Each structure stands twice: as structure tokens, then as C-alpha cells.
């Protein structure tokens, strides 16, 4: 594949902003702002996919599907859910300062890893190209930040945002790992995430009604 048509600088910039939106989505305490950060990230991902499409037209499909599922439907569900409840997130297990350090370390670590040993993570020739290494570094960082968010946040709404980040990380990596994935597979993978978010928020709405809170620490009924 000829990668000369790619705008390397644009892709680098967008990638960096994607990481920043992840950190904001994880760290900001107002749930509405976190959802906004997530929506911004979704739009950036669509932009990234579209810029990669310059060399791989089948990624246009990916960009279109991501636009509908990640940038329209998921934020819609999130805002609709948050709109009805308490907007302020419950205090997380790990505060702002340490979190930013974690995020920075992750980014540096993955950047160095993908520029040194990318073959382990992506054995394709494509992944040896500079922009794709950056893409993988960003994808891994977003993935691990999402996992970090799910593990350390008490607020169930925040864990759903973390889950979305986790998925975004994997989906971003597809650009380098599986650029020729058929549309049916892409469609299946993307649809699944939207349905998951919808169902989770539906169940969490039930939790909020029954328990009077979205604090996951309050979910102790099954531990007697």
C-alpha cells in the first residue's frame, strides 16, 4: 500500500488530541463534560479514519459507521441518560494528579514500544510505517486509559464512558492491524458497542431507581 498520500502531520496532531480527549473524559468530574469529551473524541476518530482513507478507500466505510455509532448514537444515549440524573460524578478511587501521571506514562511507554518493537503488536508491513506506529501507540493508550477508567471510577456512568474508550482504542488499532476488514465484520463490531452502551445505561437507570445512586460501591446486595 502506498502511504505517500497520507498527511502525516494532520494524523499526528489528531492522534495527540484523541489522547487528550481521553484524559479529559476520564478526569473531568462533571458527567456532561465527560460525555462531551467523549463525543469530541468520536468526531476526531471519524476524522482520523477519513484521513487514513486517502490510501485505503475501504476505511471510508469505517469512518461512516463510526460517525453514526460513535459520534451520534452513543453520545445521544449518554446525554439522555445523564440529563435525568445527578451531573456530578462520585469521587473516584484515584484522584486527578496521579491519573494524569498514569496517562502520561502510558503514552510515553506505548510510543516507545511501538517505535521499538511494533512487530510484536502488529506483524504487518504496514505497521512499520511511521504514522501507523503512532496510530497503534494512540490506540493502546486509549485502550488502557479506558480500562483504567473502568477500574478506578466509582460512578457507573463513568464506567460506561471508560468502556467506550476501551472500545475506541481497539477500533482505532484496526486501521493498522486490519485495514481490509470486510464491511460486514466492521458493521457487526460497531453495532455491538452501541447496543452494549444502550443496554448498560438501561440497566444503570434501573440501578439508579432501585438503589437511589449510581455508585458502584453501593452494589453490595450480592455479598450479603
Amino acid at each position: 500500500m502506498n502511504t505517500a498520500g497520507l498527511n502525516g502531520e494532520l494524523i499526528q496532531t489528531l492522534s495527540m488530541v484523541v489522547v487528550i480527549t481521553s484524559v479529559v473524559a476520564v478526569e473531568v468530574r462533571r458527567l456532561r463534560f465527560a460525555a462531551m469529551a467523549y463525543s469530541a473524541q468520536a468526531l476526531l476518530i471519524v476524522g482520523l479514519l477519513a484521513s487514513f482513507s486517502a490510501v485505503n478507500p475501504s476505511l471510508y466505510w469505517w469512518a461512516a459507521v463510526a460517525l453514526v455509532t460513535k459520534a451520534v448514537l452513543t453520545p445521544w444515549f449518554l446525554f439522555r441518560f445523564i440529563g435525568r440524573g445527578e451531573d456530578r460524578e462520585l469521587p473516584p478511587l484515584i484522584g486527578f494528579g496521579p491519573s494524569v501521571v498514569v496517562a502520561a506514562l502510558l503514552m510515553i511507554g506505548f510510543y516507545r514500544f511501538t517505535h521499538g518493537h511494533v512487530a510484536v503488536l502488529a506483524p504487518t508491513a504496514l505497521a512499520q510505517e511511521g504514522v501507523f506506529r503512532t496510530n497503534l501507540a494512540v490506540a493502546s493508550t486509549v485502550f488502557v486509559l479506558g480500562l483504567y477508567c473502568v477500574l478506578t471510577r466509582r460512578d457507573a456512568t463513568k464506567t460506561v464512558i471508560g468502556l467506550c474508550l476501551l472500545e475506541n482504542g481497539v477500533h482505532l488499532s484496526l486501521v493498522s492491524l486490519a485495514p481490509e476488514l470486510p464491511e460486514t465484520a466492521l458493521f457487526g463490531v460497531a453495532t455491538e458497542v452501541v447496543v452494549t452502551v444502550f443496554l448498560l445505561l438501561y440497566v444503570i437507570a434501573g440501578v439508579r431507581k432501585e438503589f437511589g445512586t449510581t455508585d458502584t460501591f453501593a452494589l453490595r446486595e450480592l455479598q450479603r
Partner: protein
Amino acid sequence: MSEQVATIASSLPAWAFLVPFAAGAFVFLGRRLGPKLSQGLAVAAPLAVTVLGLEMARVVISGRVLTGWGNELRVDGLSALLVLAIGIVGTLTAVYSLRYVQQPGLLTRVGAAAEKRLPTFYGLFLWFIATMVWGCVTNNIVMLYVAVEATTLTSGLLVAFYWDKRALEAGYKYLMLLTIGITFALFGCVLTYAAAVATKGLTGGQALLISEVRGVAHLIPPGTALVAVAFLVVGFGTKAGIAPFHPWLPDAHAEAPTPISVLLSGVMIKMAAYALARTVSIFYPRWPTLAVFVVALGVFTMVLGIVMALVQDDLKRLLAYSSVSQIGYVVVGVGLGTYLGCYGGLFHLLNHALIKALLFMCVGALIYATGARRISELSGMREKMPITSACFVLGALAIAGLPPLNGFLSKLTVYLALAKAGMWWAVAIAIAAGLLTMVVMLRAARTVFWGHAPATAVAVREVPATMWVPMVVLAVACVVLGVFPRLPFPLLDRAATVLATLGR
């Protein structure tokens, strides 16, 4: 392990999951036509899956492999075994559920409009079965992930169906933990695909097909293979309930309405174990040392599950932890990668599907008749509910591995396979876990069924026939498979050959 098998194009694999899917859609669309329609379809569709599964089994036993939609769908011995298990357990569960769901307070809270929610229940029930079957017949590694995640989505609301605090907590954990877990599997699947493309032996479309990837697996660099296997084990292992990724399992299996518990413990975790075996076995021939790692994981699961079961008072939680332990035997057997190990593991997979379905149905019967499910709240049920008692004790003995019941033979095969592979440490631990299983199950049975029935239990009666007949069918199957172990041999032999990548 030759990939040169005769394949025949067939529409059977597609029908096997399209029928329950269409039936589910019909139930949702025709929700105003009353509960009779949804219940009828709920029985008919899994029955159709069973019939299709039998036909598939007949074809694969004759040495051929069914393919559909190009090579997107593929049914070999292993897939046919799973489809058959899902069909049989699904049909019996549907029959069992007919009366169970009508008892006030069992499906929804007392006073809630249970009638109105029945179509939703059965629609999701049918889609749950459809997605499980889909996962077992697909040959596309990314679609395998999609199908496994789809089983989580279709069953998520079923787990939380009761919609009280406990059910909602279980439902939230179930959806959240399994989705995180399965995302790891997606990464593993995509990495496998990317690595297969990079070997240059396959084109993009071919590299998605599991049957094709097997042929180029030896060209995948070891580092990548290791990362892919780690992600697949975490991902599908979470869904299969392998320790230490099991914490969702006891909550979900215990809080779901009993017919759903039967499906979750009986077949869903097996379908995930199938996905794990199907994908990880790709890497086995080149890296046989993986076997030690997988066996160790299985042994750990086996012990942890049964130790946790020891301290449970809630019968459904006890059975759920026992499922964790039993899936350990399946993982150990299949993880060995030898023919004998795979045969034992798959035989145990089939046996455990039948036994655990039986045991959960018995506990459901106790709940139906008494409203209680804690061991400490029940006693003397032997006289009140003779059929349920007999079925439970038989299931308990079968799962403990007592001859001449089916659990004995499959566990013995796993022990022999371990011994043959020289893993005596694993044999010792597995036998110890087996003895603990006997203690756990018989202690529960003794407290619940023997002794004197409390005065409050005067009105307790045996459950209706639509509930006990499926139980008796399963109990008879446990005895028959134990006394005539050659009966499932032709199919199990084919299935084990598919997975036996490390020779006989």
C-alpha cells in the same frame, strides 16, 4: 491433522441460527397475540435446532464437513456437538419454563405485570439461543467475537429480568465485566487475523476464516502469537468463567430466572469454552508448551470453584461455583491438546451440560414449590417432592463422578489423559477436586432432602409434569451415557479429532 476433508455446501448451518432468530423476532412482533404464541415458538425453535443438529451430526460422522455462505459458516464434529447440546438443553429448558414463569414472583416481582413481559422474556430467550448457535457455526474469527458478545447482549437483560436490587446488580456486573473481557478477545482475534495476513499465505478475506488460518499458524512470529493467545484467553476465558476471570458468574447464574440459569450454566459457558478452544488451538501445533499453561489455568479454576462452592448456603450460587469448577475439567482436557484429553474434555462438556441443566432445574423446582433456595431453609423435601429429590441426588452423584453415571467416565478420561501426558500433579489435584465436589453436593442433598420437613411445608407438593418431565429426561440421559458410553462416540470422536492438534 489434515485440512483436506470433504466439504459439502449446505444451508443447514444457516438455518440452525436463523430459525430461532426469526422465531424470536416473531415473538417480539406478535407480542399482542398473547403468551401462548411466544411459549409455543420458544419450544418449537430449539426443537428445530435439535433436529438440524442431529442432521449435521449425521453428516459429519460420515466424515464430511458442512459449509455455508461461501466458507463463512462451517460445521465440523466440534460445531455439531455444540449445536446439538444447545438444541437439546434449549428445548428441555423451554418446556420446563412453561409453568415456571407463570408462578407469581418467580419471573418478576409479585404484582408486576408478568404476563405482559412474557413475550420479551421469550423473545430474548430465542435470540440468546440463536446467538449461541451462530457462534458455534461461524468460521469467521471476527464474527466469532461478534457472536460471543451478542450472547452477552441478548442474555444481559434476561439476567436482570427480575429487576430488583439483586438482579440489577448482577445484570450490571454481567454486562460490564463480560464486555470488557470480550474486548480483549476482539483484540486477540484481530491480531490473529493481521498476523495471518502478514504471513502472505492468505488473502485478506481468507485470513478471517479460522479453518484457513490454521494452515499458516506456524508462520506467525512467536511474540505475536503469545500476545494473541494471552488476549484470547482473557477474553473468551472471562466468558467461559475460567478463574480468575469468573467473578461475574455466580452472581449472574444465581440471580437470573432459573430457566436462564440453566442455559447460562448448561450451554453458554460451554459455547465460550468452544470459542476459546477453536481459536487457541490454532497456535497449538507450533507452540505445544501452551498446553502446560492452559492445564494449569484449568486446574486452578477447578479447585477455586469447588472451594468457593463449599461455603455457599444459596443453592443456585453453589451450583454456579460448581460450574466454575467443572469448566476447569473441560479446559484441562481440551487444553492438553492430545486426542484423549480432547475426547475427555468434550465428553465432560456434554455431560456437564446435561447434569448442570438437571441440577438447576431441580433447584428451580424447589423454588417453585417452596419459594426458598437456601440450604438452611430447606429440609425433608424427600417425602414432599420425590421426583425432584431423586433427580437431584442422581445429578449430584453424576457431577461428583460416581460410576456408573456419565460424569465418572468423562472425568476418568481426563485423568487418564493427564497421566498419559505425565502431569501427575494435575491428576492428584483433579481427583481431590472431584472428592470435594462429592462432599459439597451430597452435603447439600442430605440437608435439603432428608430430615424432617418443617411445619410450614405442609402444602408443598411435587412440581407439575411439564417441569419434572424435562428433569427426568435429563436424569435418564445421565444414566444412559454412563452405561453406554459408546453411544456418543462417533460424534465425540470427530469433535476430538478437530481439536487434537498435539497427536493422539
